[in-house]
């Protein structure tokens, strides 16, 4: 790269240089004279006054980091620092950082997120919780990522467990669990203003204020507005996927100096999007796309009481109500959820750490019927009761742990399921961890796979044939998809600043739900009389997946960190053509570099192998792609910072996903994003 700079003539150059050096000297002298400034060196730090000490910002090494190293599961964490450094603006984008996680952006407002295979718009085997509240939707069994916006600055961390977590988290925690955890109101005091604007109009404004209502009673309130413009589809036209989102909410934490913490939080959001909707008619037989304005809205309120006992015990009681009005592309789905959960952790002698819990959830799902999609019954009531227990037995203290537990879950749709797991954790030395696990998990069929009829396509075969309708049916006799998972893992930190993590897994799936073709029949209703070419979702699939996930963290020097990960995935599913193919290989490397003068240079490169939609549906192959992001942050003062990021720098656009639910292929463009954050 050639940098052109201002070239003054020689005489001016010397005058300028003289003036510059003069300024430099003055500044240095001025600074030396200013004795109020604590300087950097460690000996001068001891001159800091008590008043300065109580006001200095501190950075902490979280306790979780050591817990992570000795965890008997494939767990990783995306920290608030990762999110800030890479200028990440949404939850699915944050999940890109996780080893072995397959994150593909479908268009401006939709993402497909999965791990260990089964890549789909509704990443059906992944359970997602926002501060303990499930956002997994029972209608289509997945997550509407565009409706799960948060104030990124208020996030504490995102914990991701790859592999089954059903014993603790319950049904649908099959291939992974994502826990999004926001900061306590105690840690978000003061005013935060942040605004960002981008080359593809990713404009967003956030206002948050935190205060102390009474001694030890903290609160924050926030409002956020985002506007995103259209992406371009593969034919070069506007993809019509622009959206905007308005949201607001609060969180209050009462942390008296006893062992109790009480939390009350709530959010409300309203999103507007423009989407392509597939419409079908029989007279004349046709299927066509319509652009339609949609809206989604929702709100929730959650209360949590945590009591810590001095002998390392803890009890949590949590309850919430969640309301969602989500446009599914075929009308609005109303979902109301009431949930109450109790969890209790205690020590039994010095050998056992026991955790048990119970919970009840009631969900009412109501879909208005359209010609394309009908539900029987139209309103479905789901009642879910669960009880679980797990014991962590110290076979050899500090060296060998055996963890045994199971969950029993009664879902009114499919009745009882048992989800046991057994784990072995061996820490031969302080810098090594070996673990192995066998676990069983279940995915409840979605209401779509149980109760629906989708009229997908209508066409006119050569006369004299009547028109033909292609439909997919659910079946109420369907039962849960089952997984038996075997996992092994090894972590090692050969030296203090370098660590490696490797996980291998072998997953055996049974009762997978796939669409099985039915014989073609003549159907008279809806009129006119037509051929019905149909298939029905049945528990007819099976198969296995296996793979390896490697990751490494290296603190090269104090101000430079590198993180790299690689994952390889193999699948052997029958019938093969019914499943989407996730990328077989993924690689990423991230670099966080702190420069002098409060500058931070952060970059990431992601290599993603090719993937395809289900071959049976004739969807395109997505070629492999390389994605590179680079950002520079300048935080001259504690109270303000400014950052600029280039995303997808290598190509002007690339394709990440093709979805059955969203047929239009949309490219993810190169973009530049700028952001200013002010804190008082």
């Amino acid at each position: 790269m050639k940098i052109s700079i201002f070239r003054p003539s020689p005489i001016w150059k010397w005058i300028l240089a003289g003036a510059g050096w003069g300024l430099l000297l003055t500044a240095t002298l001025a600074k030396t004279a200013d004795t109020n400034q604590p300087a950097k060196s460690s000996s001068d730090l001891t001159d800091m006054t008590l008043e300065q000490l109580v006001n200095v910002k501190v950075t902490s090494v979280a306790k979780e980091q050591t817990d992570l190293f000795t965890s008997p599961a494939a767990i990783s964490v995306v920290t608030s620092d990762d999110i800030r450094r890479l200028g990440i603006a949404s939850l699915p984008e944050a999940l890109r950082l996780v080893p072995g996680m397959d994150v593909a952006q479908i268009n401006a407002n939709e993402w497909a997120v999965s791990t260990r295979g089964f890549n789909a718009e509704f990443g059906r085997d992944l359970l997602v919780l926002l501060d303990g509240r499930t956002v997994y939707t029972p209608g289509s069994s997945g997550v509407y990522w565009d409706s799960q916006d948060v104030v990124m600055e208020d996030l504490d961390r995102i914990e991701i467990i790859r592999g089954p977590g059903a014993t603790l988290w319950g049904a649908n925690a099959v291939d992974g669990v994502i826990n999004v955890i926001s900061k306590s109101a105690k840690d978000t005091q003061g005013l935060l203003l942040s605004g960002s604007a981008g080359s593809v109009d990713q404009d967003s404004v956030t206002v948050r204020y935190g205060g102390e209502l009474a001694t030890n009673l903290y609160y924050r309130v926030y409002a956020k507005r985002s506007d995103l413009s259209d992406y371009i589809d593969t034919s070069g036209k506007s993809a019509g996927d622009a959206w905007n989102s308005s949201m607001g909410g609060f969180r209050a934490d009462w942390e008296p100096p006893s062992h109790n913490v009480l939390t009350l939080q709530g959010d409300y959001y309203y999103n507007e999007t423009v989407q392509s909707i597939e419409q079908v008619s029989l007279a004349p037989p046709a299927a066509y796309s319509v652009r339609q304005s949609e809206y989604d809205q929702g709100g929730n309120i959650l209360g949590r009481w945590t009591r810590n006992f001095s002998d390392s015990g803890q009890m949590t009681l949590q309850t919430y109500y969640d309301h969602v009005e989500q446009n599914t592309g075929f009308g609005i789905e109303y979902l109301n959820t009431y949930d109450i959960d109790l969890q209790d952790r205690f020590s039994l002698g010095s050998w056992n750490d026991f955790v048990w819990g119970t919970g009840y959830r009631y969900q009412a799902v109501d879909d208005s019927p359209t010609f394309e999609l009908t539900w029987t019954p139209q309103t479905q009531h789901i009642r879910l009761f669960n009880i679980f227990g797990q014991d962590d037995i110290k076979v050899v203290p500090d060296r060998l742990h055996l963890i045994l537990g199971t969950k029993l879950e009664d879902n009114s749709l499919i009745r009882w399921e048992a989800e046991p797991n057994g784990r072995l954790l061996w820490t031969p030395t302080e810098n090594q961890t070996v673990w192995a696990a066998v676990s069983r998990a279940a995915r409840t069929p979605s209401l779509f796979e149980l109760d629906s009829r989708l009229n997908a396509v209508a066409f006119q075969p050569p006369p004299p044939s009547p028109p033909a309708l292609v439909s997919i049916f659910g079946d109420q006799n369907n039962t849960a998809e089952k997984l038996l998972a075997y996992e092994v893992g090894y972590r090692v930190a050969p030296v203090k600043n370098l660590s490696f993590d490797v996980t291998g897994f072998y997953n055996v799936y049974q009762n997978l739900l796939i669409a099985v073709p039915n014989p073609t029949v003549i159907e008279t209703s809806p009129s006119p009389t037509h051929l019905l070419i149909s298939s029905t979702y049945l528990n007819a699939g099976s198969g296995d997946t296996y793979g390896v996930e490697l990751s490494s963290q290296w603190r090269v020097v104090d101000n430079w960190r590198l993180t790299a990960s690689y994952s390889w995935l193999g699948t052997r599913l029958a019938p093969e053509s019914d499943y989407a193919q996730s990328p077989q290989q993924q690689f990423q490397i991230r670099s966080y570099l702190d420069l002098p003068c409060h500058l931070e240079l952060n970059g990431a490169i992601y290599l993603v192998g090719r993937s395809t939609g289900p071959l049976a549906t004739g969807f395109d192959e997505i070629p492999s792609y390389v994605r590179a992001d680079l950002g520079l942050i300048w935080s001259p003062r504690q109270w303000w910072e400014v950052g600029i990021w280039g995303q997808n720098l290598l190509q002007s656009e690339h394709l990440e996903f093709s979805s059955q639910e969203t047929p239009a292929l949309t490219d993810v463009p190169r973009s530049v994003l700028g952001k200013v954050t002010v804190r008082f």
Partner: protein
Amino acid sequence: MGWMAHVLTWCMCLGLWCQVCEVGLADAALPEYQVKALFLLNFTKYVEWPPIAFAASDTPITIGLSGESKLGEALKSVVAGKTIAGRAIVIRQVESPEELSQCHILFISGAESSRYRQIIDKISALPILTVGEDAAFAQNGGIINFVLKNGNVRLEIDLSAAKKAGLTISSRLLAVADVVKGKAD
């Protein structure tokens, strides 16, 4: 000579840039354990021990550390070569009850949260400044507790516990702390 001017100009730009930025250094964040170590050093200045706590006028001030923490290393570099009113500062990792009673300041790390109450019970009548970092430390007999609040380290003080130990805490220290129990005289 041309290249030299270039180098000088760039050095100057870099220097100026750093000078401009340097002003912001007061705002730079420090590791939590380092800030706590700096507080411990300050406690030696703003806490007064009864005469019986020291055998002689030059008996060093002993800071005991109980439980695993990164604070120890930071504290060593913070107190290196420092004397407070003619007394050197000694840092010691303590395990046994006998060692406990020889301390002037005892820092009990968060790793000891399950048994700090037993430790405090043993030494609460001795002239030892107990310092902790567990949520309810100052409610359970500890004298000074570090609490994290909005990214700062703040202090909670139980004055009645300090009085019981025969310690006097200066008003300067009280001014930056929250007194959770007891009253200033």
